[in-house]
């Protein structure tokens, strides 16, 4: 369905993506995972023909995005991070407009709009002005416009951005509902989100695919396993004493690699927060040891956030990574300034 080869995109002298190569098969639901600025949105915009690549080849359903953009656009539905909605139109008028723009035959427009309203559960607000809708409904309208023409490929950029927990659950259901009828590419910086909805994860870092596979494969790839977030309390003790006590209790557990004391996650006497790096899932053992040591457990959770897993994948600690990343960007900027030459576009 999608073939990307040696894709580069520059904004002026700054490389946003590249070299980026990957393939996505028909019917796959793929998550594009990366930090802000990693190149996710640029990649999706190129797929949707909103931007043209600086170099490289991108083919969607067999059509090149540079040579045959109209054919590609007819086969792609795109929801940008900010849904492209007209506040002065009703939902139904807007969806009809989007359908007509995207080559839906006039005789089919009404039916297609009714179908997507049903799929995205927008029927009850069909006659409402878009400007009066909640953020969650606006996201739904955004998805509805992306699928109203029955595209082969649906590209969703951060579809859960700004949604409340209930809306997030509904949006997940909606994205899952697209499975089968469409190939779907979803971007997010939240690993949980990607793993909940996608068959495969593409980790993107600094404009390149850093890793590709399922969530299970991603966990297995992480040599150092996962991290556990802990918040404990020892009555009558200081925060430092609680942390020391927890550290001592954890020291004897087989599988605990490193214990890091953090700023307490909540205020209160004797409360300490720790991050425990483990080589296997030893959450039960950790809980038992802490209780036996006389500590109350306020929180014990597996950290699945991108911030930790993704950085583990790169073999970097969070602080190291931040410094390295900033240093790298600074050196790139310095180099570009020194060169003061035309964009170093790859051929």
């Amino acid at each position, binding site marked *: 369905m999608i073939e990307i080869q040696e894709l580069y995109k520059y904004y002026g002298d700054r490389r946003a993506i590249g070299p980026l190569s990957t393939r996505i098969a028909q019917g796959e639901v793929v998550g594009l995972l990366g930090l802000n600025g990693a190149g996710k949105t640029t990649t999706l915009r190129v797929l949707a023909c*909103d*931007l043209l690549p600086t170099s490289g080849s991108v083919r969607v359903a067999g059509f090149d995005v540079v040579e045959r953009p*109209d054919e590609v656009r007819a086969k792609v539905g795109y929801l940008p991070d900010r849904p*492209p909605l*007209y506040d*002065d139109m009703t939902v139904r008028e807007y969806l009809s*407009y*989007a359908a007509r*723009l995207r080559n839906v035959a006039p005789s089919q427009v009404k039916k297609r709009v009714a179908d997507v309203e049903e799929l995205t559960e927008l029927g009850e607000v069909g006659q409402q002005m878009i400007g009066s809708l909640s953020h969650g409904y606006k996201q739904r309208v955004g998805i509805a416009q992306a699928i109203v023409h029955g595209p082969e490929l649906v590209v969703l950029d951060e579809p859960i951005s700004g949604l409340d927990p209930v809306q997030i659950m509904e949006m997940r259901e909606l994205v899952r509902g697209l499975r089968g009828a469409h190939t779907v590419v979803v971007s997010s910086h939240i690993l949980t989100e990607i793993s909940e909805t996608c068959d495969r994860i593409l980790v993107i870092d600094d404009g390149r695919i850093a890793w590709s596979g399922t969530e299970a494969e991603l966990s297995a790839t992480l040599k150092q396993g996962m991290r556990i977030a802990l918040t404990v309390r020892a009555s009558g003790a200081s925060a430092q004493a609680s942390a020391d006590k927890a550290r001592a209790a954890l020291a004897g557990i087989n599988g605990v690699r490193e214990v890091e004391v953090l700023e307490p996650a909540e205020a209160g006497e004797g409360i300490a927060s720790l991050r425990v790096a483990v080589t296997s899932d030893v959450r039960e053992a950790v809980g038992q040891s802490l209780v036996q040591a006389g500590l109350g457990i306020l929180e014990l959770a597996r950290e699945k956030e991108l911030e930790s897993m993704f950085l583990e994948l790169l073999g970097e600690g969070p602080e190291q990574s931040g410094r390295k990343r900033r240093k790298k960007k600074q050196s790139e900027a310095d180099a570009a300034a020194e060169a003061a030459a035309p964009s170093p576009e790859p051929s």
Partner: protein
Amino acid sequence: MRALIIARRELYAYLRSPLGSAIIAAALLVDGILFYFASLDTKRLSAQLLTQFFYDSSAATMVAGLLLSMRLLAEERQSGTITLLNTAPIRDRDIVIGKFVSAFGVLTLMNLLTVYMPLMVYVRGKVSVGHILVGYLGLILLGAAVTAIGLFASSLARSQVVAVIIGAAVVASMILLWVVARAVNPPFNTFFSGLALHHENYRPFMVGTLQFDRVAYYLMLTYFFLLSATKVLEARRWR
């Protein structure tokens, strides 16, 4: 043709928002007041009054054209809705044509609503129908050119205010070319006066003379700025 789908949506936006109505109402009010004062001069011939009407209306047309076109692309960029158009299977030129047709349509409607004033002159005075028709042709052509300039300015800016400032600067510069023409020697004076947006090119229409080279000038100017707006949209995809 998908340009018409966009034009329809834009016309709808003008009707729903107070902006379109407010601009038309203000322009008609100004036209009416100027016509009233011009008609108070009883020594003026009816043909002269009609010429004055087309002169005054041209100012209202240019201002209204800029104000109507400032939002066309700048607002889409500001609100992010340009993505809907950019990712639909539609050419950039169709986007530009659709936008142009809507603003030009509203502007032409505005101009046609002033027709009662020339008709009063026709009924009470001695003017030809041809003078009225040619005068309106001039207004419509001038309106098309200014709308195209405004649309081009709107393609450059994200803010409507910036768009209208750029558009006004281009229009003012092109009007003032006749001043430049006076200051330079031949053959450059002919060249500059031939390029002026209003003076040499619009005057024949005001007096009811149809000159095809003036018609061609406005058509080419309109085409040039519509093409420029299209190129701006195309170039933005490569950035």
